[in-house]
């Protein structure tokens, strides 16, 4: 399998508190990786370091042949100018916990904004592709609605379509169902399962153990800024070797 994403010794501290203590991670093309762990374990920060929404204090993420945010020149990583960083970021689809739909754009307006502005597509081409994606997430009927008129589950499905519209190499999900009412979680997970089945490369930070067990090829469990357990979903979830991971899984599975 060809490697799609690799993080190399990613460290990050916020006001002296070390959130990530040197994370090495690898994801192959077509693979679904779920990152589990208690709140504050650093899993969201790791995702945000991969697409450079946070700049790591040291270490870096490598995605699809490029080091994100830097250029390797001689023996140093030189920070990229903003434009080139954004070009890299547009290769990484990001789905946020709080959706972050553009409040002043309609559903279809949200989906075509990136393709038109960043990829230079015409409105017609972007709208045509955008409607296909909205259809895929079951939101085509709401194309002209405003985000404020949607339920959380609907917003998140639109957010997934918006990220997919950029034709990213990798999709990152940052607790995509954590802000949803329980009865709306299923519709979002359903869309994600379909993406996984279609061979999308996905890194999913989540609390949904059931989703991880069913969909993930591999699972990593983070605790206190370190990866304590990694391996096939069935093995990690059923038979973790690390005692703290066992405690954590015991709590969430109970």
């Amino acid at each position, binding site marked *: 399998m060809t490697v799609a994403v690799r993080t190399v010794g990613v460290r990050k501290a916020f006001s002296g508190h070390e959130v990530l203590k040197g994370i090495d991670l690898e994801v192959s093309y077509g693979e679904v990786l779920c990152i589990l762990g208690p709140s504050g374990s650093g899993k969201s920060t790791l995702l945000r370091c991969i697409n450079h929404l946070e700049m790591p204090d040291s270490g870096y993420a490598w995605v699809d042949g490029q080091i994100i945010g830097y250029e390797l020149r001689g023996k140093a990583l030189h920070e990229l100018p903003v434009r080139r960083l954004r070009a890299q970021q547009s290769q990484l689809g990001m789905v*946020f916990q709080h959706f972050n739909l553009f409040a002043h754009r309609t559903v279809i307006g949200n989906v075509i904004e990136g393709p038109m502005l*960043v990829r230079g597509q015409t409105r017609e081409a972007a709208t045509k592709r955008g409607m296909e994606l909205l259809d895929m997430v079951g939101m085509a009927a709401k194309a002209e609605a*405003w985000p404020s008129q949607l339920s959380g589950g609907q917003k998140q499905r639109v957010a997934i379509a918006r990220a997919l519209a950029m034709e990213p190499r990798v999709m990152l999900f940052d607790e995509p169902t954590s802000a949803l009412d329980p009865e709306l979680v299923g519709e979002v997970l359903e869309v994600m399962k379909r993406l996984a089945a279609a061979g999308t490369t996905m890194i999913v930070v989540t609390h949904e153990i059931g989703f991880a067990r069913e969909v993930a090829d591999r699972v990593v469990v983070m605790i206190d800024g370190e990866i304590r357990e990694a391996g096939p979903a069935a093995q990690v979830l059923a038979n973790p070797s690390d005692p703290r991971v066992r405690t954590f899984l015991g709590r969430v599975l109970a």
Partner: protein
Amino acid sequence: MAAETKQGLSPQDLPPPGLAVRRLVHPWRWVAGAVVIAVLALLVRAFAKGQIRWPIVGEFLAADVIVKGFGWTLLLTFAALALGILLGFVFGVMRLSANPVLRFAAWLYVWIFRGTPVLLQLLIWFNIALVFPRLYIPGLVDVKMVEVMTPLVAAVLGLGMNEGSYLTEAVRGGILSVDRGQVEAAHTLGMTPGQTMRRIMLPQTMRLILPVLGNSAVGMLKFTSLAATIAMPEMLNAAQRIYFINGAVIELLFVCAIWYLAGTTLLSIGQYYLERHFGRSAGGRA
């Protein structure tokens, strides 16, 4: 518990459903209304009987000089407001710049122009030729300042730069209150800082500061009367020139009041429609 039931209605005495309900009467509301109507009536009577020659008000309401003056008032309002909005957005964005020098420059602008009276600023612009006798930009302009700094130019600069200092703070507050997640979403889609600002931040800021802009427009229409002091031929100035001759002071001031009221009313209506347009994403309409 049992004792209370005995004192009140017992279950056997309860009336059947479907009884008529008599609403509480509010006599003091009627009294307050009557008092206010009486006061208003007295006021109207006082003005009707006072020493105002109403026919003269009617006569000058549509007089050429007054209408032309109101035209200048409107022109000045829109020009100064446009300058103020432009400066407000430029300096408002600068206030939040990552560059400390830009932040300081924007702060300095607000400090000076919000910290001095607007009438004083008008007088300084009008007399700026005392400081800079010539306007000289190498290769571009070389003229006498008095020829450039006409009353209109001085009034637009004075009113516009003063307004801009207030709007700078409004824009800064508006940008700060747009959710941080909107910027992150724009970044992950690959938008440059300029695209993020133009396409994501400013439209949303616009909706938040529209009420402020509406107040600015109404205020600006009225503040243009200050330009009368620097010989700008706007409406108040025109009225003054007439009453210096015919002595109908209060009549002409009333004429102005009527025009200003008409103008501010129209602006308020415009504000309503603008807010509805920019608020459409927040409302329930599809």
